[in-house]
């Protein structure tokens, strides 16, 4: 197989872009304003599902405006140092090749992993603040909690799934360039199976048509349909507005977050959705039953039980409703934020429990449940000769 068609038949100009013209136009406008120093936001966050032209649009805009594109993707910006070296270096110097300016582009932001790469995200924030050149970021899911700070400083530009008829037009053109004649029905099938992902459609076309003279609808057969992933806010709405358990479960299955995360979202948003205490009580009652199952799943690795947990949690959340569905602003689970904020404190406490456990020849669990209450009493009474060191660092640790 030769070069991927998705590369070799890539649009060369902005005018050739398929779908999302408005978004590309908006981004172009923002880049121009940013260069002129008139943009409201310091950076632009281009977001949308894969294969909708985000990276391509940024590349074409850099070409169109004769800007030097400084591109980094997730594997390059894992560490603060790497971001500083590439983007940091680029923001301070002029252009070597005589371009009119630069465009700093952080692609595939989703690939950055939360904990280890925090330095990388911090460095990106700093570049956004200090850069003399426009900074553009791209991500599939802009609502990821890690990007909260970024969202505040970025103008959000959405790229939507590309409609099947538009994909068909482009596929027909590519087939023509590649010298394959393809039946319209076949193009339609490919386009529909791609579910708005242009790159996937082109790849499928290449896989089926390369080396052939004619591609018939019958050759296409059954393409594995790319299931549409829904954003978490849509999933919440679908779950809470469902009228049957089946509907709620279907919504849960199309969520792009993992199950535990989904349960956190439900947990957080039950009181947002329901004002009536009876509704809340019922939703939480079912949710608590789901939680028992989840615990079994985790403790005993009994994965068979997971479907019960899903049905109880989402079904309960949906069927607790006593009136018509009410539009609700869903919020991000606070538990995750609290856990990450208290991580250091919890770590310190754990260290102290372990020291005590060693001194007292007992288990950490015993220290926590049996000794700690007494230590607290001793602390309060100001009598802590024995635990002075531990007691004092406990206070500073919060």
């Amino acid at each position: 197989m030769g070069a991927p068609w998705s590369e070799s038949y890539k649009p060369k100009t902005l005018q050739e872009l398929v779908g999302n013209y408005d978004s590309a136009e908006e981004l172009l406008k923002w880049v121009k304003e940013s260069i002129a120093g008139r943009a409201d936001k310091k950076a632009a966050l281009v977001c949308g599902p894969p294969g909708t032209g985000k990276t391509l649009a940024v590349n074409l805009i850099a070409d169109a405006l004769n800007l030097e594109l400084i591109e980094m993707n997730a594997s390059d910006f894992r560490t603060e140092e790497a971001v500083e070296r590439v983007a940091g270096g680029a923001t301070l110097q002029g252009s070597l090749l005589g371009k009119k300016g630069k465009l700093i582009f952080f692609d595939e932001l989703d690939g950055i992993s939360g904990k280890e790469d925090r330095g990388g995200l911090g460095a990106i924030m700093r570049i956004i603040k200090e850069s003399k050149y426009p900074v553009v970021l791209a991500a599939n899911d802009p609502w990821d909690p890690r990007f909260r700070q970024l969202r505040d400083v970025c103008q959000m530009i959405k790229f939507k799934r590309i409609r099947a008829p538009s994909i068909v037009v482009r596929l027909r053109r590519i087939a023509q360039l590649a010298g394959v004649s393809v039946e319209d029905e076949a193009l339609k099938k490919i386009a529909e199976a791609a579910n708005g992902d242009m790159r996937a459609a082109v790849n499928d076309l290449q896989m089926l048509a390369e080396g052939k003279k004619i591609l018939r609808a019958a050759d296409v057969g059954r393409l594995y349909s790319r299931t549409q992933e829904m954003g978490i806010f849509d999933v919440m709405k679908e779950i809470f507005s469902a009228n049957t358990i089946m509907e709620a479960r279907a919504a849960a299955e199309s969520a792009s977050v993992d199950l535990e995360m989904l349960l956190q979202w439900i947990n957080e948003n039950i009181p947002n959705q329901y004002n009536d205490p009876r509704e809340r009580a019922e939703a939480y009652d079912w949710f608590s039953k789901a939680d028992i199952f989840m615990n079994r799943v985790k403790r005993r690795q009994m994965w068979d039980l997971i479907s019960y947990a899903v049905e109880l949690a989402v079904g309960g959340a949906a069927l607790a409703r006593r009136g018509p569905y009410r539009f609700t602003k869903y919020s991000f689970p606070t538990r995750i934020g609290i856990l990450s904020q208290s991580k250091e404190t919890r770590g310190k406490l754990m260290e102290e429990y372990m020291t005590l456990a060693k001194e007292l020849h007992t288990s950490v669990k015993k220290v926590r449940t049996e000794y700690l209450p007494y230590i607290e009493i001793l602390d309060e009474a100001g009598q802590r000769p024995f635990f002075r060191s531990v007691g004092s660092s406990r206070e500073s640790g919060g």
Partner: protein
Amino acid sequence: MFKAVLADSRIWRNIIESISTLVEEGVFIADPTGIRLRAMDPSRVAMVDMELPKTSFESYECAEEMPIGVNFDDMKNIMKRAGVNEKLELEKLEKEARLKIRFRGKTSRTFSLPLLDLGKEELSVPRISFLATVKLPAATLMDAIKDAEVVSDFVKITAEDEKLKVTASGDRGEVEVEITKDSGELLSIELKENAHALYSLTYLSKMMVASDLSDIAILMFSTDMPLRLDFNLPNGGRIVYYLAPRMEAE
């Protein structure tokens, strides 16, 4: 097939080090005339342009153009093993995606380096007419850069009145280095016009790694334009760096 023998393996070691300070991955092009490489650093602020002609080698065989894509960290680690008085053989067969690196001294040691398929980015060097061309001992330039690094992370280079001035200022103080013909340190200076520009010391000091290869540095620049820094190798061949100017602080 490509096969080249260098009399002194340390030359190749120094070349690799000079490239690897700026570039992580790059493609050497071997053709019947010699080996060359042109690459930009990831921030696209600096460029290195290396060529080593056929005549620099003890023997050289290459029938047709052959790209050799390497990871410079890996190659550098291999080249660190180069011993004194060891010859170096580089060999690549047509179909193999590996480069054989052989040290021949008291023993024969062969490393096999997996090559990368990097595709070709055709880079052209910046087209600039330079107003100032200054030739000076590499060690003198190195000293000036090290002096400047004490107080700042960028430097102002000025050429005027048959003098080269390297100045830097920052929160940590100020420094001025004057290099004149009288001291014998300025080998030659050609000025079409007086010129001055700011450059990042981070990049400049990385480029000075190549001073191991040549005693003399040739510095070319124009006001607020990119800089070019040449190191000519004693046995033919050269390493040329380009560096974009630092923008004036607002």
